[in-house]
């Protein structure tokens, strides 16, 4: 593996050399979607220019080859995330679809009065599906509070478990605050205290360091490809085989059936069971290329160390700004910095930074329950990836000084 050289890394991401207006792009919105290295873009191009075919049913070379590559992509990803069995890795459109698949699957077995333990820091993707299911089935949702530093209030969370708890679900990393939750300990507690299934939303965890699912003890783990330097329209649901195979299919159609006739249809086992129709073949292959890139060209540890150093620098610099409040100050954080300013609304901050070429998010970050909890409408959020550097933070600070000139 080459040494971690931030300039070389940045050169591998074509978009990072573009300008916005006439200012260099400062991309601090990786929490929304990550940028793609040339390795991933080239992989997609190569597939479409040279290898494109549908999978599974073909006896011709291109189709066999595409099938092999699709299968190998699953293997690569399974290995990268420590999935114990390859077939337990299901390709979906993204984290949102993955959660929906599980909530649909559980709708067959959960019954009135059953309880689900969530937290107030869930992204809508891991919140609304459960709310809808709860309404349909008469389930009770219980939400763990969040502390002032932006951590799950563990005592409160633990107090929510009962013999009726059938599912505990929590985000690995908060997209709005950056907090890394102690998911391994939480899973152990949930398993010890109840026979709840555990679903972890890893959408914001996977881009920031190596995740080993086997190590976590959970039953389901979900994430999106586009946030982990992979292509759009692809995501992962990992789940225990015996649970997934007991689910009714989520969608139905070609490839997921064993035999179809007018009198009845039988379904295949995982992974095909949940991959009805033509999947996003190039998306799967591109996502595997992203993991390959991270493993072989960058190194997760070096990436994480670099990101943490930038996070530290950014936190220091931002703390110097008067009237600026960082929301989410947990000791264990990824490179996500949400903040509010006394003088300016997040939207105005975002607009002014944009004129400086600095891309951040402003708003509720699909975490309205959390915002309500903090009694704020939203925050400005700068979110990092390993390709950010100190100059990015300096540009952010310069931009915030401009905000103060207008609103100070």
């Amino acid at each position: 593996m080459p040494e971690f050289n931030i300039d070389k890394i940045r050169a591998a991401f074509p978009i990072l050399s573009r300008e916005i207006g006439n200012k260099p792009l400062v991309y601090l919105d990786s929490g929304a979607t990550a940028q793609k290295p040339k390795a991933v873009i080239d992989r997609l191009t190569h597939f479409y220019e040279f290898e494109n075919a549908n999978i599974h049913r073909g006896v011709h070379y291109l189709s066999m080859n595409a099938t092999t590559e699709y299968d190998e992509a699953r293997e690569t990803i399974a290995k990268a995330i420590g999935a114990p069995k390859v077939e337990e890795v299901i390709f979906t459109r993204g984290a949102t679809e993955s959660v929906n698949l599980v909530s649909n699957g559980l709708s067959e077995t959960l019954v009135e009065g059953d309880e689900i333990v969530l937290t107030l820091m869930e992204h809508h993707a891991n919140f609304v599906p459960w709310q809808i299911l709860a309404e349909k089935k008469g389930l009770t949702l219980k939400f763990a509070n969040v502390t002032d530093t932006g951590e799950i209030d563990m005592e409160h969370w633990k107090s929510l478990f009962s013999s009726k708890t059938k599912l505990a679900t929590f985000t690995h990393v908060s997209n709005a605050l950056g907090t890394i939750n102690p998911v391994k300990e939480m899973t152990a507690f949930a398993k010890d205290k109840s026979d709840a299934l555990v679903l972890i939303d890893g959408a914001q965890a996977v881009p920031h360091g190596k995740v080993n699912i086997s190590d976590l003890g959970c039953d389901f783990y979900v994430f999106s490809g586009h946030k982990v330097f992979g292509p759009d329209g692809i995501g992962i649901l990992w789940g225990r085989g015996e649970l997934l195979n007991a689910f009714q299919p989520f969608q139905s159609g070609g490839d997921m059936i064993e035999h179809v006739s007018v009198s009845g249809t039988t379904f295949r086992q995982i992974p095909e069971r949940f991959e009805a129709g033509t999947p996003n073949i190039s998306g799967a292959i591109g996502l595997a290329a992203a993991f390959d890139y991270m493993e072989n060209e960058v190194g997760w540890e070096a990436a994480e160390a670099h990101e943490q150093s930038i996070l530290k620098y950014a936190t220091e610099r931002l703390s110097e700004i008067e009237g600026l409040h960082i929301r989410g100050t947990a000791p264990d954080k990824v490179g996500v910095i949400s903040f509010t300013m006394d003088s300016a609304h997040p939207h105005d901050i975002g607009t002014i930074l944009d004129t400086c070429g600095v891309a951040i998010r402003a708003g509720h970050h699909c975490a309205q329950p959390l915002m309500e909890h903090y009694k704020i409408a939203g925050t400005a959020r700068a979110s990092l990836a390993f390709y950010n550097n100190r100059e990015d933070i300096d540009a952010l600070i310069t931009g915030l000084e401009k905000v103060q000139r207008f609103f100070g």
Partner: protein
Amino acid sequence: MDDLDDLYQEIILSHNKRPRNEGELNPHDHEAEGYNPLCGDRLQVYVRGGSDQIEAVQFTGEGCAISRASASMMTESVKSLGGAELEAKIAEVLQILTAKEEPTVDPFEMGELAALVGVRKFPPRVKCATLAWHTLQAALRDKNSISTESDD
């Protein structure tokens, strides 16, 4: 920089800092809540009187500089209007904010509201500026809430 100065004109910044007619209006004859689901901003508009003749308008709520300034200016500019005149005023503002073609704004006639035209260069902010006006319309029609997403 130019565009930004157009957006955050002194007049906008001043209305944002010291909005006129902020606070619940009591008693009131109409009210509505406006909501921008993309940023989470909410705005309440209270009206005494009605479409025929507005006596007073006030607003409460959270929002960015643009939405607060727009709300503040709105409360001042529609006070004591009614009927066709009121409709024309609302239409005129929405028009300069959302018309495809660059509007010709007569600052003499439009007064402070002319400052809103700077928002046009920031398309995602247009909804911030129109929110107060849509909410006023909703209040006058006794529609209790509107959302920028279902409305335009």
